[in-house]
């Protein structure tokens, strides 16, 4: 695994999120004031400005929100080496607007449809480093990103 995607660099706010991912748990912030769920994690609730935010685990179930296939133009050597590859967003079932990126492992471009059901899986992108991915429910699943 010499060539790999850029690795996420956690900061003071996002550390619990990335720690959760390494434990194969998908955590987002929940506001104690208005119960709104929030991703990406932030210093305050984007709806009510409360700073009482606790990380809670999501089911990992959602739907395709948007999608594309990067065919050319990737800048990073890893993504150049695997082009074309899928990229897009999924929306979690727990709350409208709770959006995560995904490469839809195990699927082809022609398989994707906005609204199709997805489920979280955890992908090792470098030695011991996991990121959340979302695969189409029923898709074969894959370690690759094609």
């Amino acid at each position, binding site marked *: 695994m010499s060539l790999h*995607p*850029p690795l996420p660099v956690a900061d003071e706010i996002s550390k619990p999120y990335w720690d959760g991912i390494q434990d194969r748990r998908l955590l987002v912030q929940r506001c104690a004031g208005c119960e709104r769920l929030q991703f*990406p994690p932030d210093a305050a609730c984007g709806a009510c400005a409360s700073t009482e935010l606790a990380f809670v685990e999501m089911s990992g179930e959602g739907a395709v929100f*948007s999608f*594309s296939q990067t065919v050319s133009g990737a800048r990073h050597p890893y993504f150049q080496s*695997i082009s074309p590859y899928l*990229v897009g967003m999924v929306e979690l079932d727990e709350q409208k607007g709770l959006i995560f990126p995904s490469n839809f492992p195990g699927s082809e471009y022609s398989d994707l*449809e906005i609204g199709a059901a997805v489920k979280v899986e955890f992908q090792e992108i470098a030695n011991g480093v996991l990121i959340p991915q979302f695969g189409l429910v029923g898709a074969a699943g894959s370690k690759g990103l094609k």
Partner: protein
Amino acid sequence: MTTSNRHSAAFVGFGESRVFRGPDVPLGELTVEASLEAIKDAGLELSQIDGLVCTPDAPFSRGRSADGIEFVSTSFMKNALGIHPRWCADVPGTIANSTLAAIRAVEAGECNYALLFRALHNPGSGKYGHTEEKNSGEIEMSGPDANFAIEQFRASYGLYPPADGAALPWSQYQAKYGSGSREQMAALVIQSRKNGLAYEGSYWARYKPIELSIDDYLNARMVSRPVSIFDCDIPVQGAGAFIITTAERAADLAKPAAYVHGIADGVPARRSITVDEALEEQMEQNRDIGRRLWADARCGPADIRLANLYDGFSIMTILWMEAFGLCGEGEAFDFIQGGTIAPSGRLPINPSGGNLGGGRMHGINHLMDGMLQVAGRSGARQVNNVDLAVVALGMGWAAGALVLGKSPV
């Protein structure tokens, strides 16, 4: 029609440098070239310029950022021109942000004649990103980017905001409206190239004066589906400059002016990995700008004769059309068919080519065309009966819009 009495600014001069694909001529030299042209166009003396304003941000750099090479600041231009302005501002964002700052400064009396300039560097090496990732795993930022912290959530997916920021909302648009095929988009892209070829200053007119055919467009290299290479503007190196003063002072100048009727700024969206990529968020930002713009200008989309709508990616123009109410939501792809948006059509769009037909001048072409059209100075590209034109620059928080008019308000 009643119009605003809030605004007193007017555009009275325009200049543009030669445009190159890469850094053939130092950017600072090109910016001086454009600025002197704009001052001459306004019929002013260099010594009368008492305000300098720009957006110095390079769209990209590679760890090096030298004033006059990769970007051009007001400090550089003050020294290069040897002038003594009483107001200088380097405004982050896009030309939208510095344009609106210039209008406000003139209207507030901070300066009499503002020189607004924008310089675009293209390293010409094929490396063209503001975020560069090393394979060591660190995400290295080589340029200013307010969204740096957000990269930790998307860089690992190979998700790059520029092209994906156009592709993803386009995919949502197609699903939401059952409209927006590449066959439909061809009408906009082909017309933009044609318009750009009619503007002698554009990259395409200078170097590759050939129209795009529908086959060229449909068979184009894909970047991020459905975005092809022709849905992206071509990066260039060049500079543009404008002179802004009050309507009262404009009356003493030889050439007709373009009068500011209304303005509106973009404001930041919520913090989200999807800011650039979600259709509804982009639309709501644009609608919000539109609502404030029409209120400020005291007119509406039905009063507009032509539109210059930012088109760094083709889908952006579609979203601006709908957000401004120039056509119904979900109807833009039908609207652009059959010549409606041609210079001779009902609602000409980007009659000088915009970015797609002119090169990546980051809105200079749009502002230039809006200004010259309402002033009746567009020559062979002149659209008839232009009383009011709308100009939308950039996208998102770094966006801004103007209504320009033939008559003072």
